[in-house]
């Protein structure tokens, strides 16, 4: 590492090519609209325009690379960038929560990597080094980790970048399992991609839909529609969905390997884009074990951790094992310091009267639609049936939403098709709240929420419709458990 005064460094020269490849399509996409508008002016003008874009893209890439400097100091990293509006960012190492190393295809060709420094702040691109040499990336990460914990420096000195290979492996997936797990990744995302593409074409006026779809053609198409065609099409869509799922899973999880590193878990995966992420154990908040309908019946689960200040792309959730047996997950949980979930009989669901609240809207709707079917139009009966089905789903959701607590953590299960078990150790509590809506008050019910750092906004960690007395007592109990768990961890070995 750098002795004496640290020197500012530039990004790897390959950045030029990567930036250029990144900037040009963006500019071209914007330009295509203009080009399309000026279509009659001939191909010459279009070519000229494309050439200008290519050169301009190169200039932009060069300026970016030229004006980007980073300095790795003894206790902080300084990033300077920008041509006219110069931006200087100082990130002290003790604020760094995570350093992710990612290698896209291009980066792999050049032996470089993108380094993302996470500090848990609100800003999205807090510290991105895109790209530096892979060896530099590893060195930087080790250096930062030493900076965060000076006491460990000596122990870390021995750890070479390749030390990862000798770290104990917690979870690994071989190819057959990876392919098998892809079967459950069924995805219709390609439909969205196709429709998006069609919309783009439409927008730029390359295709005139009015010319393409005339009434005569529509009639002709209508005559060709048969059951065989519909079934064939459905089969095709499903097949493509399965293939898309496998492709997506394989590209993402290829070579999945979770190892125990000194600070936490190190996860490596990816086929085209290699990514390496360290999940620092003291940043993990909640453990999530989830499984879809079919994979659950076959005994496969997914384990992930909600972490503080984690990768925002994945919503603060880091996958630790994408497709594993329960007996494979438990050691990982234990290694992360999370207790194993208690047996199913320990879980309690909400009181029966909570069903009223869950069912009331759907049953009312079903009743109204049934009346409508008799009075006005029989077709309303279909709606009534649908509402009744939704009511059934709501009832099942009530049954599946259960909670348990033991000496170390709170456990909550939920979900109808995808079932989710979440484990939250008491000491991770940020805030506890008990709330009661108008209908809940009538039924003497309350919802207890236990907030944690980096919690999902759409899936709060809560226990819905507890008995109002239980909810208050439980809130107080969880709060006291939090206090004593914290007192315990405070008296134990401290970090930083």
């Amino acid at each position, binding site marked *: 590492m750098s002795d004496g005064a640290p020197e500012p460094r530039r990004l790897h020269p390959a950045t030029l090519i990567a930036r250029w490849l990144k900037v040009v399509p963006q500019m071209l996409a914007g330009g295509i609209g203009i080009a399309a508008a000026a279509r009659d002016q001939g191909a010459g003008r279009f070519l000229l325009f494309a050439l200008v874009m290519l050169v301009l893209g190169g200039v932009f890439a060069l300026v970016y690379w030229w004006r980007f400097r980073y300095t790795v100091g003894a206790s902080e990293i300084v990033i300077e960038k920008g041509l006219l509006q110069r931006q200087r960012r100082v990130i002290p190492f003790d604020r760094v929560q995570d350093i992710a190393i990612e290698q896209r295809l291009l980066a792999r060709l050049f032996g470089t990597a993108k380094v993302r420094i996470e500090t848990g702040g609100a800003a999205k691109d807090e510290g991105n080094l895109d790209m530096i040499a892979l060896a530099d990336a590893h060195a930087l990460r080790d250096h930062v980790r030493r900076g965060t914990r000076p006491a460990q420096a000596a122990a870390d000195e021995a750890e070479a970048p390749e030390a990862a290979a000798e770290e104990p492996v917690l979870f690994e997936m071989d190819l057959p399992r990876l392919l098998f797990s892809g079967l459950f990744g069924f995805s219709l995302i390609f439909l969205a991609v196709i429709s998006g593409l069609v919309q783009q074409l439409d927008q730029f006026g390359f295709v005139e839909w009015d010319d393409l779809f005339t009434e005569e053609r529509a009639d002709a198409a209508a005559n060709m529609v048969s059951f065989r065609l519909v079934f064939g099409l459905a089969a095709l869509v499903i097949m493509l969905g399965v293939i898309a799922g496998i492709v997506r899973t394989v590209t993402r999880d290829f070579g999945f390997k979770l190892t125990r590193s000194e600070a936490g878990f190190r996860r490596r995966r990816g086929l085209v884009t290699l990514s390496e992420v360290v999940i620092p154990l003291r940043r993990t908040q909640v453990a999530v074990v989830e499984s879809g309908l079919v994979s659950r019946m076959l005994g496969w689960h997914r384990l992930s951790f909600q972490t503080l200040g984690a990768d925002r792309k994945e919503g603060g959730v880091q996958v630790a094992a994408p497709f594993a047996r329960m007996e494979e997950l438990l050691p990982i949980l234990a290694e992360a310091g999370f207790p194993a979930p208690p047996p199913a009989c320990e879980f309690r669901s909400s009181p029966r009267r909570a069903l009223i609240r869950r069912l009331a809207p759907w049953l009312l709707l079903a009743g109204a639609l049934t009346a409508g079917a008799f009075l006005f139009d029989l077709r309303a009966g279909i709606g009534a049936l649908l509402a009744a089905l939704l009511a059934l789903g709501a009832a099942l959701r009530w049954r599946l939403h259960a909670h348990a607590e033991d000496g170390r953590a709170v456990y909550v299960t939920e979900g109808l098709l995808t079932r989710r078990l979440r484990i939250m150790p008491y000491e991770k509590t940020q*805030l506890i*709240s008990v709330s009661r809506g108008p209908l809940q008050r009538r039924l003497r019910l309350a919802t207890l*929420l236990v907030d944690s750092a*980096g919690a999902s906004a759409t899936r709060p960690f809560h226990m819905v419709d507890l008995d109002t007395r239980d909810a208050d007592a439980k809130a107080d109990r969880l709060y006291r458990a939090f206090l004593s768990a914290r007192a315990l961890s405070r008296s134990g070995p401290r970090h930083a």
Partner: protein
Amino acid sequence: MQPDEYQDEPSAMTPLNPSQIKVLRIRIALPAMVATLAAFLLDLGPLRETILPQLAVPGAVLLLGLLAALAYPPRRYRSWGYKESEEEIEIRRGRWFRTRTIVPFGRVQHIDVAQGPIQRPFGLATLILHTAGTHGASVPLPGLLHGEAEAMRDRIRAKIRQDLV
């Protein structure tokens, strides 16, 4: 109304400053006045085309606004309360959706004392506690005397321990 232990122990909670009722009144009265004015303007124009008698609509809007400004604030005020303890603060709020929130001081990231234009003439302020959580990312406690809010902020700040684990 159903008996509910939520209201069983109001004595244990510190109420907000009574001036908060006036603040709430103004907060309702201001938009009500704007709505009345809009209704009055409508009354001069489009509403004349209908069979509605003159001034009926703006009158109704004004009456509703006045009723709301008179009846609602005291109830809303009573629904608020807080209890500051050694290690945590407990805040109760809401009439329709009642919430009881426990914020451990050890989890407070930072504290704001905010004072809006309506609060200022009454010397009131809002204490806002920020945690690292998602749903309780910021917990407001309005209707405190500005000096008291600042004193509370200083008391809590002294107890904040800066670790995130």
